[in-house]
């Protein structure tokens, strides 16, 4: 797949990455063929008691992304993403969305085999 989603604190490549997945402020989705990007707002996740990670996974699947670049993913979100073959790169933080994109393009990012955070965060 040619689209990647990056958890972000804002809509642009200059914004900081949000290390949270389910409760990220939003997702910058980049089409690797055209290099065009768009932003998916995720503010409503803040009021969810649980299941924010699952909802985020649904948003990303709907956007047609095949990759997620983020900080931490919980077990339910990981299960949901894996169910449709979306690849997860985790442990990214304190960098901008653009920097994350550059790392992805240069290769060498590791695909996560398991979630790296407990439920509910």
């Amino acid at each position, binding site marked *: 797949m040619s689209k990647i989603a990056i958890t972000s604190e804002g809509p642009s490549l200059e914004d900081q990455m949000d290390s949270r997945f389910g409760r990220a402020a939003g997702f910058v989705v980049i089409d690797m063929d055209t290099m065009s990007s768009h932003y998916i707002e995720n503010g409503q996740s803040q*009021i969810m*008691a*649980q299941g924010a990670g699952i909802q985020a996974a649904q948003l990303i699947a709907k956007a047609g992304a095949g990759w997620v670049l983020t900080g931490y993913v919980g077990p339910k979100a990981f299960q949901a993403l894996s169910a449709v073959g979306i690849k997860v790169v985790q442990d990214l933080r304190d960098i901008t969305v653009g920097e994350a994109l550059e790392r992805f393009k240069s290769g060498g990012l590791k695909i996560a085999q398991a979630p790296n955070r*407990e*439920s*509910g*965060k």
Partner: protein
Amino acid sequence: MREILIISGKGGTGKTSLTGAFAHLAVNKVICDLDVDAPDLHLLLCPSFDQTEEFYSGFEARIMEELCTQCGLCASMCRFEAIRENGHGFSVDPLRCEGCKVCGAFCPSGAILFPQKHSGRWHVSSTRFGPLVHARLFPGEANSGRLVMVLKQKARELAKARGMDMVLCDGAPGIGCPVISSLSGTNLAVAVTEPTPSGRHDLERVADLCGHFQIAFAVIINKHDLNPDESARIEAFCRQRSYPLLARLPHDQIVTTAMLQGKVVTELPETDFSRELKKGWTMIRELASSVR
């Protein structure tokens, strides 16, 4: 960063009084009261609010009378018995409504709205022992687990921003939703128990809960001299499970005396109680830095 949670299973074992004293003894930390249902820590720390935020969580059904045809389908489908006939139509009992939206989805006349629930308020405050993050869930509200998460997140951000390396949390009694939420991200859970049948029983359940989530666990026995036999049983339980026993505190009215003055026990002249407590805190610090 280290996150330490003081819990108890059973209420009234002295958890909050001890957390208050630890807040006094600890340096460079953010204090966090995760008992959002009946918070008490502020009574010892006398905070001044620096920031107040509203907490919204979930949704709640509301029937618009002018659109309702009184078919009763909503009431028959609600598994929570939250929709009742009230003589001149149907109304929603907010205390029973789970916000599942089933009634709204099936209502043939679209007469049911789902406004967001305003269910509490949280604060970042200053205290004589450092910053405190705390909250209050409105009476009867659910989703305390989510509010606990919000507080933990805020406390972490605050600690990071101020270069502090510890978050010290006062937990809620029980083993349900808010307690499960308070465990997430915790490096060390310290259970305060008492040598009573209830104290031991509830300690075992909260220990199992921490085991379930693989959280390091240690124990303080408060009022240990109230029943030496039961204290011995708790100690044996700790040995058998390899839980460090951090302190054995005597039954001492100093706890109430301090509370009445709006102080923590370690601010009062030293007694056996506070000496043992200080020893316990040193062990907590060592343990917290050694666990994963």
